[in-house]
């Protein structure tokens, strides 16, 4: 039996897809340990209308902190709130997305609960009541399978790897109020959220990523990839070479010193396939490489490759896809 508290992240008035992934993972974990309460925690200015729907994904109840204190992101306030619920719910496990905010405030929750912390978890398995938590090291060149005899345990889950499943179709979770927290000691002050890149899809959340590397030649040539990304509704990624050359912001960088991604489809254009880049994308379901050098290491890891000039192949690919996708 294990109680699981799950943080359900929201932004701009909507639950993010990682929220449904985390609740589903929490339900699967509790069930594989003989059952238990799955409690979702939602923090924001208002109670979102979709909170009760979390019942369908396995939440037994939702604790909502709908309060000005949570209207904007605050690591200290969010950690206090989640710590309060975890203690009240006698949580054995606390799960949250390994999103940017998750990675910032969830470690603070672990310390509040004097709990071990596993970041960016890629799998949770249970054998004979023993829970194994798997997470990548060296940007996924290897994986640690970890165990702790202590509870509670706190983990952030890699986005897009834990399936969001309606195990209780139609169920509506009751919602209760978080109640007061002692905000007196909170020192950091949120000023503003600034949208960048016109709300472009982040590579860590994308199902499809189109990435450009040194082969693009210059920054302006990312424009060659944009129509392809648009028809596929893909995020644009970049190699370290492209970022270091100043062609695109670091937020697009995929690799060991950038982001690790898990899309269904990864299209690498003009990317040679340095070991550090592979570390960031080799967990993609399907990899396509377009490069005019047949010996480029990227072809070793690609499922499908085209040897050719990306300035000809990418527009041709875009046109071919438009035939049935638009």
């Amino acid at each position, binding site marked *: 039996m294990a109680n699981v508290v799950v943080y359900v992240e929201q932004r701009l008035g909507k639950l993010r897809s990682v929220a449904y992934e985390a609740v589903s993972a929490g339900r699967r974990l509790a069930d594989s340990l003989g059952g238990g309460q799955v409690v979702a925690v939602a923090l924001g200015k208002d109670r979102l209308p979709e909170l009760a729907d979390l019942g369908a994904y396995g939440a037994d109840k939702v604790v909502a902190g709908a309060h000005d204190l949570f209207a904007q992101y605050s*690591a200290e306030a969010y950690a206090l709130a989640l710590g309060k619920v975890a203690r009240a719910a006698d949580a054995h496990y606390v799960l949250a997305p390994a999103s940017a905010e998750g990675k910032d405030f969830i470690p603070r929750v672990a310390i509040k609960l004097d709990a071990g912390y596993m970041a960016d978890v890629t799998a949770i398995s249970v054998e004979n009541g023993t829970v194994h938590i798997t997470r990548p090291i060296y940007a996924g*060149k290897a994986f640690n*399978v970890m165990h702790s005899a202590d509870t509670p345990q706190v983990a952030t889950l890699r986005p897009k790897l834990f399936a969001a499943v309606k195990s209780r179709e139609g169920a509506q979770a009751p919602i209760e109020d978080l109640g007061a927290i002692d905000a007196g000691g909170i020192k950091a002050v949120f000023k503003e959220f600034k949208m960048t890149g016109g709300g472009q899809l982040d590579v860590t959340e994308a199902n499809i990523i189109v990435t450009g590397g040194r082969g693009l030649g210059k920054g302006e040539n990312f424009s060659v990839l944009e129509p392809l990304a648009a028809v596929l509704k893909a995020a644009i990624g970049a190699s370290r070479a492209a970022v270091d050359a100043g062609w695109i912001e670091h937020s697009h960088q995929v690799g060991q010193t950038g982001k690790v991604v898990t899309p269904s489809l990864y299209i690498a254009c003009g990317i040679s396939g340095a070991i550090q880049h592979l570390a960031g994308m080799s967990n993609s379901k399907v990899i396509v490489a377009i490069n005019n050098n047949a010996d480029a290491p990227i072809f070793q890891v690609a499922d499908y490759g085209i*040897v050719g000039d990306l300035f000809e192949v990418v527009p041709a690919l875009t046109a071919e896809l438009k035939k049935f996708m638009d």
Partner: protein
Amino acid sequence: MKIIVCVKKVPDTESKIKIAADGKSIETGELKYIMNPYDEFSVEEALQLKEKQGGEVVVLCLGGDAEKEIRSALAMGADSAVYLEDPGYNGDNYATAKTLADYLKGQSFDLLLFGKVAVDDGAAAIGPMVAELLGLPSLSAVETLSYEAGKFVGHMGVEGGTNIVELPVPCVLTAEKGLNVPRYPSVMGIMKAKKKPLEKKPTKTALPKFTIVKLQSPPPRPPGKIVGKGVEAVPQLVDLLRNEAKVI
């Protein structure tokens, strides 16, 4: 302004990672080590703040056999270093944060800086954990930073944008790539670094909460195929993506 910058020794990102015979660790024999690349951004930021505000920059490191990496931060221009030396350093997040916080409880500082993430462990946990243990505000993945009259304003990179947050001193920040352009140590800097104070404190890292059951290699990928050359191969590629791979 007193700034403490925490640095970590990590294997070079070129390293091929091989699982050792015991199945619970990696083979270290052929590894080359460097200061964590993200720590270069935090050292550089500390140096720029010192140049503007005056004060001192102290490097802090927990680990084993890490003197070379600490000296590289001193060579960039930091003033002194404290080396919590533990040859048996276990790398666990919780244990690392507790051990660092135990030392830092006795120190006064305006700013405690970490790199956003260590490229070996990838957890990005230590900054926020130490902040919580010390009762300080923190902000991770800072892409832009300014300081005025006892307050830092940091831009934290999040999906689709940035959270702009103001933190009073003392506070904890973790540096994202792009925060600045780290300077290369000059020859003079490297020479001076050898004489800068480096205080070694024998340390036993706290006990970890998690133990390693085993290490796994990434699942092997089946061999792929070159579909063809140039634009002629495009229709077949699209067909394979739709009907074989079924990803579009």
